[in-house]
Structure formats: structure tokens, C-alpha cells
């Protein structure tokens, strides 16, 4: 048979740390701090809203854009939490998680050769989704000394005449970095002057521990050139419900809805009904979970300090990104030995871009007991490294 697969798909390398992931999955007795999703169950009242929708026989498609009451609740939520106004009818789309929104936004925006700026370390899908949409990914290596924030200089030096889109993934997975109002403001005149469009992935927005989340869409001149992506997975512990949304200018949402309509039809109806309840009655749950993550975050930072493991202070999401450069090993070697010798699974920083080399992603979406035990083992591992190499 001739080669049936597209050259484009074949060109996308499988994740370099796939091998490591396979080893982890073969060690069921290891303690894992490697998961990128909440440890909480979806709050019970949200689950019952989903169950109730099934009992009432709401098992049909919704409109392509999603249930209107849900779109209205999303717009009300964005107004009250981040002070941006969107029209539920023409500027809002319900998607299968934030992931679908990223994919179809890039497909709607890019022509062959258009460049997409992707700050790294960051979530794994921006780069392949850009390639699949015929765009050219251009990575920007974020620096630990800048607390993994994107600076004006870094942005300026990455822009070429072909640059069209900037992806802003904050609060950030894997670093936990957050961009505050001033830091975002430092970018906006560049973005406007160079006529760029921003895809702002704010899936971790509710997990901000130093003041409220600020969206770049709320800054002057930015709403018309920003797509705000968010969802229910992290804030409401609803990963398996697969529900996200995108809000932005009507000219873009119209085209994204077209792709969504042909590829997906609509987001799951049960999840949409549950999400209406999440937005109406879930503020207390979000606060409770945020407090719990924040406590664990402080606990981890304290323990790293005690064991002499340098780690910049994350202000968002539920990850720490300690620096292991002083041990003179690659992230993957460190993670593999930690797994083999102490049976603790963490994710090598290189999973999130080459510039993640020398770092580990440690998730604190785990109970205090698990964290305690895992950190005791990490400390033991480090002590042995220091003593024996």
C-alpha cells in the first residue's frame, strides 16, 4: 500500500516523554504527583443537575453554539469575575473542553505559513494544533528569572512580518506562573501596533492565589483582538464532563462555530445542564477548592525550602516547577531515577517544551497525606544524590 497518512500528521512527533509515561503506568504502586486534573469530585449539586437533566429526558442535541441559558450564565460570570462583556448570542461558543476551542480557533485564524507565538514551558497542545492548522509555531522560551512570565522584550524579539497569533497560557501549566495587570499592560501596545491576535487560555483562572485573575481582554483595545478560552474542568473539578467555552469577536466566533458545527455538532447536553448549575450555585465550591490548593501550595513551598530544592513561587494553577539543575541530570533522568528508586512519579519539565529542561512539574492536586509521603521520598532521593551522586 502507498503511504496513506498525511505528511503533516506524520511530521508531528509523539511526545518525547511517552516512554517515561509508559513506565509510570506500569508501576501501579508508585505515588503519582503527575496528574494535571483536580483530585476533588465534581460538587454533588452539579452532578445532580446532570442526573436530573437525564431523568427529564434531555438527551438531544443542543444548538451548535450551546444552550442559551449556559451562554448567558457564562457571560454573566465573565462580567462579574473579570469585567468583560460578551454577547451570548454572537460572541460565545460552548466547546468540548478548552482543548477544542484552542484547536478550532487556530484553524479559523491561520493561513499556511502564518506564525503563532507559543510561550513555553506550556501545555502540550498549542504546537501540534498550530501545525495541523498549517501554521508555523514559533516558541518563546520563558525564563525562571522572570518568574516564567512573558516580557515585552521577549515578545518583541519573536515577532516577524508573518506573526499573526500570540498564545497566552496564564495561569500556566506547568510552571504555575501568573501574569498580573501590569505585566499584561506592558504587552498590549506591542500587540496592537503589530496587529496580532491573542488566544488567551485561562482555564486555570479561578486558581489564582495572589489577587484576582486579570484577563488581557479587559485591557483597553484588547477585547476586539482576543479570544478568551476557559472551561469547567479545573475550577469546578469537571474534567471528565469535557466542557469549555470561547468568547471573542463575532467575526471569529462565527467561523469557529462553523468548524465546530461540522466537526462536533454540539457539546454534550448533560454536561451543559450541569454547567448551568455550576455557574449559578458553585461559587462556594470554587472558593473551598482554591483554599485547599493554596494550603497545599504553601506546604510544598515550605517543604522544598526545607530540603534545599530551589523553586520559584507559583501564583496559580496547581503545580510547582522546582529547579533541579544543580544535580547535573536531565529532567527525564531525574524523574526516571526518582520513580525507580523512590517510586514517586512526577513529570519532567521537557514534556512542556525544550526549555523545561532542568525542571520538574509537581502537581499538588493530591491529598495532604499523599503529598507528605511523596515529599519525604523526594527528600530522601535528594539526600542520597547529594551523598552518593
Amino acid at each position, binding site marked *: 500500500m502507498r503511504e496513506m497518512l498525511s505528511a503533516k500528521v506524520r511530521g508531528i512527533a509523539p511526545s518525547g516523554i511517552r516512554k517515561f509515561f509508559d513506565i509510570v503506568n506500569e508501576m501501579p504502586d508508585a505515588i503519582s504527583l503527575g*496528574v*494535571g486534573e483536580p*483530585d476533588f469530585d465534581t460538587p454533588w449539586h452539579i452532578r445532580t443537575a446532570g442526573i436530573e437533566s437525564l431523568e427529564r429526558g434531555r438527551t438531544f442535541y443542543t444548538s451548535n453554539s450551546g444552550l442559551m441559558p449556559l451562554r448567558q450564565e457564562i457571560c454573566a460570570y465573565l462580567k462579574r469575575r473579570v469585567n468583560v462583556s460578551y454577547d451570548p448570542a454572537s460572541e460565545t461558543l460552548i466547546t468540548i473542553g478548552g482543548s477544542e476551542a484552542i484547536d478550532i480557533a487556530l484553524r479559523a485564524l491561520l493561513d499556511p505559513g502564518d506564525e503563532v507565538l507559543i510561550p513555553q514551558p506550556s501545555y502540550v497542545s498549542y504546537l501540534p494544533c498550530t501545525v495541523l492548522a498549517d501554521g508555523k509555531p514559533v516558541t518563546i522560551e520563558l525564563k525562571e528569572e522572570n518568574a516564567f512570565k512573558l516580557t515585552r522584550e521577549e515578545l518583541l524579539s519573536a515577532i516577524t512580518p508573518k506573526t499573526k497569533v500570540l498564545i497566552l497560557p496564564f495561569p500556566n501549566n*506547568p510552571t504555575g506562573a501568573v501574569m498580573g495587570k501590569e505585566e499584561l499592560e506592558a504587552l498590549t501596545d506591542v500587540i496592537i501596533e503589530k496587529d496580532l491576535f491573542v488566544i488567551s487560555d485561562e482555564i486555570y483562572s479561578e486558581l489564582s492565589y495572589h489577587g484576582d485573575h486579570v484577563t488581557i481582554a479587559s485591557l483597553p483595545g484588547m477585547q476586539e483582538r482576543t479570544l478568551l478560552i476557559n472551561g469547567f474542568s479545573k475550577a469546578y473539578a469537571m474534567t471528565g464532563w469535557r466542557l469549555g467555552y470561547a468568547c471573542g469577536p463575532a467575526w471569529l466566533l462565527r467561523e469557529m462555530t462553523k468548524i465546530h458545527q461540522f466537526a462536533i455538532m454540539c457539546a454534550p447536553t448533560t454536561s451543559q445542564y450541569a454547567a448551568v448549575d455550576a455557574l449559578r450555585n458553585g461559587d462556594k465550591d470554587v472558593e473551598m477548592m482554591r483554599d485547599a490548593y493554596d494550603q*497545599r501550595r504553601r506546604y510544598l513551598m515550605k517543604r522544598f525550602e526545607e530540603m534545599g530544592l530551589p523553586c520559584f513561587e507559583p501564583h496559580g494553577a496547581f503545580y510547582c516547577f522546582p529547579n533541579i539543575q544543580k544535580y547535573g541530570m536531565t529532567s527525564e533522568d531525574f524523574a526516571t531515577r526518582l520513580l525507580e528508586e523512590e517510586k514517586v512519579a512526577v513529570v519532567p519539565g521537557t514534556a512542556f517544551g525544550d526549555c523545561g529542561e532542568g525542571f520538574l512539574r509537581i502537581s499538588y492536586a493530591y491529598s*495532604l497525606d499523599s503529598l507528605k509521603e511523596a515529599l519525604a521520598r523526594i527528600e530522601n532521593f535528594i539526600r542520597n544524590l547529594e551523598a552518593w551522586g
Partner: protein
Amino acid sequence: MREKILDAIERDARIDLHDLAALLGMDEVDVANEIADMEKENIICGYHTLINWENTSREVVTALIEVKVTPQRGMGFDKIAERIYNYPEVDEVYLMSGAYDFTVIIEGSSMREVATFVSDKLSPLESVLSTATHFVLKKYKVHGTTLVPQHTDERMRILP
């Protein structure tokens, strides 16, 4: 900050002081002092262990007793409650709004023992008009903790 401490130790009274201070971002000595003060001020009134006796060989029967009383001169609700709660068999006593006056919760080793307490000690009290005893058949959740087995962590083990 007191409320944060209370929230944490209400869930886990045995939490290590060092860990608690780290979780709250406080100094260990400050946390210890705050707890000591709250013990003195009768805010923290005890540290108990939540035991599921069902999983032991000991027979434990729990009953919830609704009590109607008639308060009299010099013998208000508080005084009547004292007469009731001073019995060591009694675990909890609450003054209620609604159709009856007190809820009394008692643990005994058998239904007979509980019945004897009601007929010999509680009912004869001068102010007590009537009682209605309800036996607990199964405990599902106590003090915010679910006693039936919960599901384990079913998440994927590693995800980007």
C-alpha cells in the same frame, strides 16, 4: 486566622503542628499559641476520635430520644438539660425548636440498656412529659466523615 486553624483541625485533629503551620503559611509557635488560647477560651472543647464501632466486635447501640418537658419556676430549660446531661450514658443534648424540646443522643451496649435508661432515669424526671425513642439502624456519615467505603483515586496516573 483562627477560623483557618479551626477548619483544619476540625477535619484532622491530629495534624502535625509543623504541617499545619506550613499549610496556613504561619509560624509554628504562633499556631501553637493560638490553639492553646482557644483551648483556654473554651472554643476548642476537646479532641475526639471518630470510631466506626460496626467494624469492631463491640456491640454499640445509638438512640435518638425526643423529649418533651414542662419548664417550671426555678427550673428552666438549662436546669432540666443539666439533669439530663449529667448522666454519663448521655452523649449529646440539644434544645430544639419545633414539636419537642430536647434531642438526647445516647449510646448503649444493647437496646435493653437504652430502654432501661429511658424508663428508669429519663422518664421519671419531674419535668419530663413524654419521650419518643428512635434507634439508629445504620450510620452513613458522622461529623462530616462518610463511614461507608469511598471510591479510590481513579484518575490516570500521569497526564500533561
